[in-house]
């Protein structure tokens, strides 16, 4: 019998919980302070990319918006990222299906080969593709950049799709067949809705990677610049806070995409 008159038990004291908090703050600060500085510089009145903070202005954003080469580069980047993402996600979906559904000879090698583009250093992929495209006598330009981005976007898109497919309960598919659905309807009504958010997550990841890719792009681009290439080019000649403004915009959009991708990566509750 518990003694109802006994005093309430005091909670066990935690040992210095603030220590972990401080350590976390230091680690996060190390990671994110530089980014914070760039954001700060983008609204700084100073003409060169530096601190101290001399006053708040949004002029650099206006300047960046009016900058024709910068806008052309942004347009190129969006175009490249969009097409490469479609390419990567489409092929990733097909590859994920092949791996999920079928047993075939060389399956492990196939998976490894698909993941190689993100395992290999970008320099290697870039040089290899450059050599390949020139021997095919394919003119360098945005087309070759799209192909290059598509290649390393594929494994990025493949990952989340394959993981989700692995969680798909086979009984759902069987139930749909059983209730009269044909294979195409089963895919449309049951399987795709189950993996949809993973497909979206994979596509967002591929898009973000393509959008700020530099290494492979250096080897494959022609006269048209992508945004990261344009920024890189300017850093060596005229460093103005305009670049910081562009970086802040990219940062914001990327963060939104990454958060959206994360939110999408949970499977539907059964």
């Amino acid at each position, binding site marked *: 019998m518990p003694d109802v008159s006994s005093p309430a038990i005091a909670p066990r004291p935690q040992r210095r919980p603030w220590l972990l908090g401080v350590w976390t703050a230091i680690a996060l600060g190390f990671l994110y302070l530089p980014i914070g500085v760039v954001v700060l510089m983008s609204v700084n009145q100073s003409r060169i990319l530096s601190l101290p903070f001399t006053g708040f202005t949004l002029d650099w954003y206006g300047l960046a918006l009016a900058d024709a080469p910068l806008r052309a580069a942004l347009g190129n980047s969006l175009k490249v990222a969009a097409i490469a993402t479609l390419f990567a996600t489409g092929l990733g979906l097909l590859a994920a299906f092949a791996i999920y559904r079928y047993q075939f000879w060389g399956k492990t090698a196939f998976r490894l080969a698909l993941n190689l583009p993100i395992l290999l250093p970008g320099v290697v992929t870039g040089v290899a593709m450059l050599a390949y495209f020139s021997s095919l006598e394919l003119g360098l330009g945005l087309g070759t950049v799209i192909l290059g981005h598509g290649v390393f976007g594929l494994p990025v898109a493949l990952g989340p799709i394959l993981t989700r497919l692995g969680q798909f*309960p086979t*009984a*759902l598919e*069987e*139930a*749909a*067949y*059983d*209730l*009269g*659905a*044909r294979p195409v*309807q089963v895919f449309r*009504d*049951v399987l795709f*809705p*189950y993996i949809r958010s993973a497909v979206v997550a994979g596509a967002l990841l591929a898009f973000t990677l393509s959008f700020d890719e530099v290494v492979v792009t250096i080897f494959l681009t022609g006269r048209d610049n992508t945004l990261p290439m344009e920024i890189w080019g300017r850093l060596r000649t005229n460093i103005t806070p305009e670049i910081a403004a562009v970086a802040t915009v990219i940062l914001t959009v990327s963060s939104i995409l990454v958060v959206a991708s994360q939110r999408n990566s949970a499977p*539907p*509750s*059964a």
Partner: protein
Amino acid sequence: MQTQSLVYLDRVSKLYRSGGAEIYAVRDVTLAVQAGEFFSLLGSSGSGKTTTLRLIGGFEQPEYGEVYLNGEVVTTQPPYCRPVHTVFQSYALFPHLSVAENIAYPLAIARTPREEIDAQVRDALKMFQIPELGDRRPHQLSGGQQQRVALARALISRPKVLLLDEPLSALDAKIRDEVRQELKAVQRQTNLTFIYVTHDQDEALALSDRIAVMDQGQVQQLGTPRDIYDAPASLFVAQFIGKANFLRGTIVDVAGDRATVLVNGLALQARLSSPAPALNTEVTLMVRPERLRLSSAADTQSSTHFLENQVSATLTQSTYIGAVQELRLTTAVGDLLTTQLGQAPIHASSSFTLSWQAEDCLVLPVD
């Protein structure tokens, strides 16, 4: 012709290859299910009962034999061509659709007009007493509710046969009984053919018109619950269904369907259900615990004195399990288990007589 049955399996075998070996999941199974029947496939895991169900549903195709539905060969037809629906063990409700959309799915696939779908779904929700759940998602439902939705979805397009794969096994014991009653009621109301897979003998006995007891991919016995309980065809079935006492003896005389069997020198009268074994061969006698009558050795007025078999017995153990008491007694023919109604404690010290009818004592082959 057996092919006139609603479902007919003709010498069907399903093989799995593992390593170099071939393993029969289902071996040479022939069975016929009639329209309106509640038919159970009963067996332990690995007995081939679920594979048999999947062969009827079209999820597996047999290596040998044919599957007939309504007299037509459907052996290689995919599931979506068969007028057969399944209630899965996991219910397999579509997580991204509401309850109403789940139930409507077979109708939507069949391109039923919108208004008709709505009306039928409303009726189905009412019939399964879940009218308020139409807008919920499956994960917001209890197990019992999910089970009802799965049943409603499988029944809404009026299949010829409903296949049920252990539909109650995921439920709590308390709801299971309730849903079991409902299941039987639904089957009576709709007069549909149910083929029901279970490992639970109580479920099979309570629900079925006929039961096929399966083991090692083969049908060991096919019959009504009464047949299977009272006249098991083999020692396996007798051991699998219910509790039973088994006695080893030698058959010494046969007259009609009655046999005399010598057990430890005592002659017992027993019933033959299959062709009589040769005289002087070893047999097993089976008698159910509740068919044994217990009387006090001193009680000579008892009605049990008219029963053919009588042995004196000493009580060694009694277990109180609520509705009945389970008693273990030592007799000249071996240890016997019996269940007795009544609340009065039975004491170990006294001596008893156990009696039973020849009718309740079945001669079975040794193994």
